[in-house]
C-alpha cells in the first residue's frame, strides 16, 4: 500500500498530541487529588456529589443549631436551678416562721428577708440570654416576662414555645413560658410569696399557722412544677446528645461517599501515568526512527 509522506507525519503528530493530552489530564487529576474535574467526567456521579454535599451541609447546620439549642436549654436550666434553691430556702423560712416562740418583729425580719427573695425570684423569671432576650416570655423575647403587681406579678409574655430545627425531621422547644413555670401546676409562686410576706407582716398569730400551711403546700406545688420543667429540659438535652452522635456518624458517611465519588485513586492514577508516559515515549521514539528513513539518504 502506498503511504503518503505528509499523512505519515500528520498521523504521528495527532497520535502524539492525543497521548500528551491524556497524560496532562492524569497529571491534573493527580495534582488536584480529584477524580471528577468537570461534570462530564461522570455526570451521574457529579449530581450525586452535589446532593451529598447539600445533605452534609444541612447535617453540619443542624449540628450548629443543636449547639444553639443546648446553650438555650443550658441558660434555662441555670436559671431554674437557682429558682429551685430559692424555693427551698423560702420553704426553710416558712418552717422557721412557724416557730410559735417568734415575736411579731422577728416574723417581720423574715418577711423583709422574703421580700428580698421575691425580688430575686422576679429577677430570675426575667433572666436574659447573652443577646439580651428574655428567656421566659414566649415569643416576646424583648418584653420582660413578669412585672410586679401589689398582689404578686403579672405575666406579660405569651404561650409561644420557641423551636429550633435540630435534625431533618425534628424541631425541639428551647424555651418554656414563664406562665407555665411560675404560674403553672395550680399555683402562682409570686402570689404565694406575696401572700406569705403579707401574712408575716401582719401582727399577731391569728390565722398564722393556716396561712403558713397553705404557703408550704403551694411552695411544694411550685417546686414540683419547676422540677418537672427542668426534667423536660434535661430530656431534651439528652435527645440533643443522641442526635449529635447520629449527626457525627452521618457526617462520616457523607464524607466517605463523597470521597468515593470525587477523590482520586492515587495508586490507579500513578499506574496510569506511568503507562501513558511509556506509551508516549514509545510513540515519540518510533516516530523519530521511522521519520528518518528515506531513500534520499542513499542518493
Amino acid at each position, binding site marked *: 500500500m502506498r503511504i*503518503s509522506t505528509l499523512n505519515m507525519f500528520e498521523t504521528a503528530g495527532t497520535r502524539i498530541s492525543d497521548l500528551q493530552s491524556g497524560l496532562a489530564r492524569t497529571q491534573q487529576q493527580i495534582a488536584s487529588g480529584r477524580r471528577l474535574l*468537570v*461534570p462530564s*467526567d461522570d455526570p451521574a456521579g457529579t449530581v450525586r456529589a452535589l446532593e451529598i*454535599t447539600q445533605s452534609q451541609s444541612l447535617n453540619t447546620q443542624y449540628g450548629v*443549631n443543636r449547639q444553639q439549642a443546648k446553650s438555650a436549654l443550658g441558660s434555662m436550666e441555670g436559671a431554674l436551678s437557682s429558682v429551685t434553691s430559692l424555693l427551698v430556702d423560702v420553704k426553710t423560712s416558712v418552717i422557721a416562721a412557724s416557730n410559735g416562740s417568734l415575736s411579731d418583729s422577728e416574723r417581720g425580719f423574715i418577711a423583709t428577708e422574703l421580700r428580698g427573695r421575691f425580688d430575686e425570684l422576679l429577677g430570675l423569671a426575667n433572666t436574659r440570654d447573652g443577646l439580651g432576650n428574655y428567656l421566659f416570655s414566649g*415569643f*416576646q423575647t424583648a418584653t420582660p416576662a413578669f412585672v410586679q403587681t401589689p398582689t404578686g406579678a403579672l405575666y406579660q409574655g405569651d404561650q409561644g414555645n420557641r423551636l429550633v*430545627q435540630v435534625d431533618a425531621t425534628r424541631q425541639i422547644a428551647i424555651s418554656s413560658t414563664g406562665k407555665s413555670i411560675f404560674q403553672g401546676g395550680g399555683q402562682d409562686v409570686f402570689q404565694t410569696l406575696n401572700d406569705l410576706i403579707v401574712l408575716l407582716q401582719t401582727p399577731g398569730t391569728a390565722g398564722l399557722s393556716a396561712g403558713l400551711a397553705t404557703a408550704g403546700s403551694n411552695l411544694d406545688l411550685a417546686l414540683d412544677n419547676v422540677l418537672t420543667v427542668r426534667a423536660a429540659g434535661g430530656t431534651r438535652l439528652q435527645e440533643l446528645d443522641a442526635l449529635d452522635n447520629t449527626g457525627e456518624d452521618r457526617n462520616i458517611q457523607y464524607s466517605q461517599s463523597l470521597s468515593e465519588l470525587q477523590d482520586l485513586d492515587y495508586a490507579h492514577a500513578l499506574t496510569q501515568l506511568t503507562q501513558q508516559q511509556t506509551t508516549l515515549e514509545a510513540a515519540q521514539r518510533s516516530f523519530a526512527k521511522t521519520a528518518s528513513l*528515506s531513500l534520499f539518504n542513499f542518493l
Partner: protein
Amino acid sequence: MATNILSIGQSALAAAQVGLSTTGHNIANAATPGYNRQVIVQSAAQAQNFGFGFLGQGTEISTVKRVYSEFLGTQVRSAQTTKSGLDSYYSQIKQLDNLLGDPASGLSPAIQSFFSGVQELSSNPASIPTRQAALSSAESLASRFQSMAGRFQEMGQGINTQITSSVGVINSYATQIAQLNDAIGRTQGTSGQPANDLNDQRDQLILDLNKEIKTTVVKQGNGDYNVFVGNGQPLVVGVTASSLTTIASPTNPQKIEVAYPTPSGPVLVGGASLVGGKLGGLLAFRSQTLEPTQAALDTLAIGIATTFNAQHRLGQDLNSNPGGDFFTVPSATVGASGFAVTITDPRLIAAAAPIRTAAASSNTSTATISAGSVNAPPPPNVNLTQPVRITFTSATTFDVTGTGTGNPTGVTYTPGATLTYNGWSATISGTPITGDSFNITANTGGVGDSRNALLLGALQTANVLNGGTTSYQGAYSQIVAQIGSKTRELDATSSAAGKLLSEATLSLQTESGVNLDEEATNLLRYQQAYQAAGKVMQIASQMFDVLLSLGR
C-alpha cells in the same frame, strides 16, 4: 535514418525531462495542503511504415494528470464538516462544563450557604447581626445567579462574534471558488489540458469551506463547481459568488442570525438547515444547549424567588408588620440576571408568624391549642390577625367569636382536628370542659418567634419546583447533569468523527498523496532515462559522423 534516431532520442530526452520536472514538482509540494500528486501520461509515438514493417518514432507525453478520486474527496469533505461541527460544539460546551464543574463557582454552594443563613436566623430570630448575615448570604446567592447569567450572556455574545466572522470566511471562500471556476474554465478551455494545480486549490478551498459549513457541491459539465448551503441556498454558481450576511434576530435583538440577501432585504436562513462545520456547531450549541440551559437557570431563579417570597409573605417581620417580598422576582425576559434581594433592612425579614395562640388562664382542663400556622398561598387573609376566641359550650361543641369568622356557634369539636378561620389553622387537643376558651391573636412583639423562618428553612429540601416534583438543588443538579452528559456525548462523537475523518483522509492520501521514497525512485528512473536518451542521440551523432567521413 540517423535523423530518425536523433529525433527518437530527442523525444525520449524530452519525456525524461518532463518526468523529472513532474517528480520535482511532487517533491516540492509534498507538504502543500490539498496537493495531489501528478503523473505523466506517456505513450509510444505513432509508428511509421517503412515497407519492412512499422518503425517506432520515439515517445510522447499526452498529458500531466493529477491522481485524485472525486469519490474519496467527497468522503473527506463530508467527514471534515461533521468533525468541525462537533469540535466547535464541544469547545463551547466544554466552557459550560468547566464553569459548572468548579466547586467554587457553581450555584450549589451559594444555595447551601443561603439556607445556612436562614437556619441561623431560625435559631436567633431576634438578633440583628444574625438577620444581617442571612441577608448577606441572600445577596451572595443573588450575585451568583447574576454572575452565572452574565457568563451565559458573554458566551452568547462570543457566539455572535464567531458567527459573524465565520460568515465572513464563508463569503471570502465563495468569492475565491468563483474566481477559480473562472480561471480553471479559461485555462482548460484554451489549452485543452487539465489545470491540475488550480483544481487542487479549488478542492482545498471547498474542504476549507466545509470546515465552516456543510456544503453540497455539484460539478458542472464545463468543470465548474456549483456550491450550495443550507436548504439549497446557492453560494457559488459558475463564476458568480453569492454571499451570506448576518442580522439581529427578529425575536431577540441580542442574537445574531445568518441570512442571505435578497433584493427585498435579508431573509433568515433557518438555523436548523445550517448544519456541520464551525458555523453549524455554533448554531447547534446555541439552540440545543446554551439557550435551554439559560432558560433552565432563569426558571430556577424565578422559582426560588417566587416560592421563597410566597412563604416569606405569610410571616411577620421584627417590626410586627406582615412580611413583604424577600427577593425581586425577575421577569421571564430578564431571567436570572434580574434575581436580586428586595429587602435591605434586616428587621424586615419575616421570621415570625403573624398570629399566636393561647389557652385562657381560667381554663380548668388540660386541653391545649397548637401554635397555629398561616394558610398558603399569600396574600394572607385580611382578618388574619383579628382576635378570635373559641369558647367551649360543652365537651363536644364550641362557639367562635371574632371579626371575619362569622361567629359560628355550636361547632362540633373533634380532638386534634384542624380549625381554620381567617386564613390561619390550629388544632385543639385533649378534653376541654364547658367554659374553657382559647385565644388567637396578633403576634405583636413576637420577636423571638421563628416559626416562619423554620418554614423558610424547610424550603431548601422541599419539592416546590416543576409542579412540586423538584427541589432547588434538584433543579440545579438537572442542569449540571444535562451539560455533563451532553459534553461527554460530544467528546465521544467528536472523537469518533475524528477517526472517520482520518480514515477518509488516509484513503484519499493513499491514492493522491506524495510519497517521497516513490518520488526518489522516479527521480532515479527519469535520470537514467535521460542518460539513456542522451546516449541514443550520441550514437546517432556518431553514425552521422561515419557518413560524413565517407566523402573524405
